[in-house]
């Protein structure tokens, strides 16, 4: 396992890259920013993902797929800030956490309902819900938490 300080720096490089651009950096880009070799960057990326198992790499690659609360791979949970729809949340639950990545900003979550396809919209600012449409929007956990459930926890 890499040095904890270096892992913290890699974590922040990824998270802030996502926040600033909507996309996670490749490990080679992150390595350059951190002043380490490309191969060391790849190893540190894997260490970070092991220490942050609620995110994941695309299988059999070094590509970041999910780095919650945001997702590098598009999902149905579109995030809009300052009028720009540049981000995706990992899931509907994590979507309510994205607000903490944009302090002082209104964060809008738009998603189609998986039953009917009609829109679900939630706006939050500094953790507070400021707009919900329709008013009856609910969260739903389909498989339960924990590895014993045998299904990906994000479903």
């Amino acid at each position, binding site marked *: 396992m890499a040095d904890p300080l270096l892992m913290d720096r890699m974590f922040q490089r990824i998270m802030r890259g996502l926040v600033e651009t909507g996309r996670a950096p490749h490990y080679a880009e992150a390595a350059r920013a951190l002043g380490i070799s490309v191969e060391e960057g790849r190893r540190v990326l894997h260490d970070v993902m092991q220490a942050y198992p609620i995110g994941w790499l695309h299988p059999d690659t070094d590509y970041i797929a999910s780095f919650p609360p945001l997702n590098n791979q598009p999902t149905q949970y579109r995030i809009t800030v300052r009028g720009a729809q540049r981000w995706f949340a990992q899931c509907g639950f994590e979507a309510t956490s994205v*607000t903490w990545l944009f302090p002082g900003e209104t964060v809008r979550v738009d998603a189609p309902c998986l039953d*009917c396809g009609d829109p679900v919209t*939630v706006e939050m600012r500094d953790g507070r819900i400021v707009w919900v449409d329709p008013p*009856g929007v*609910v969260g739903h*956990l*389909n498989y339960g938490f924990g590895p014993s459930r045998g299904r990906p926890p994000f479903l």
Partner: protein
Amino acid sequence: MNLFRSEEHARRWPAFQPRAEEGFITLADLAGFFGTETRRHMLDPDYLSTWYPRRTAERRAYLEQINKRSPFWLGTPDP
């Protein structure tokens, strides 16, 4: 972990699991669940080493506070 227009919409979802009848959470509780203290530090330089390790205990405490104490929510083995 999804958002639906209402509980009725979730129940009509073809992938809805029978056991997941206990899987509903209000939006306000959800925002609280995903807005606990550690979540507010995701941009801190020491988030991974200092804050993330506190997340599991914090989540459990919040779930118990909103009375979601079943294995389904706590991720504990079924009795």
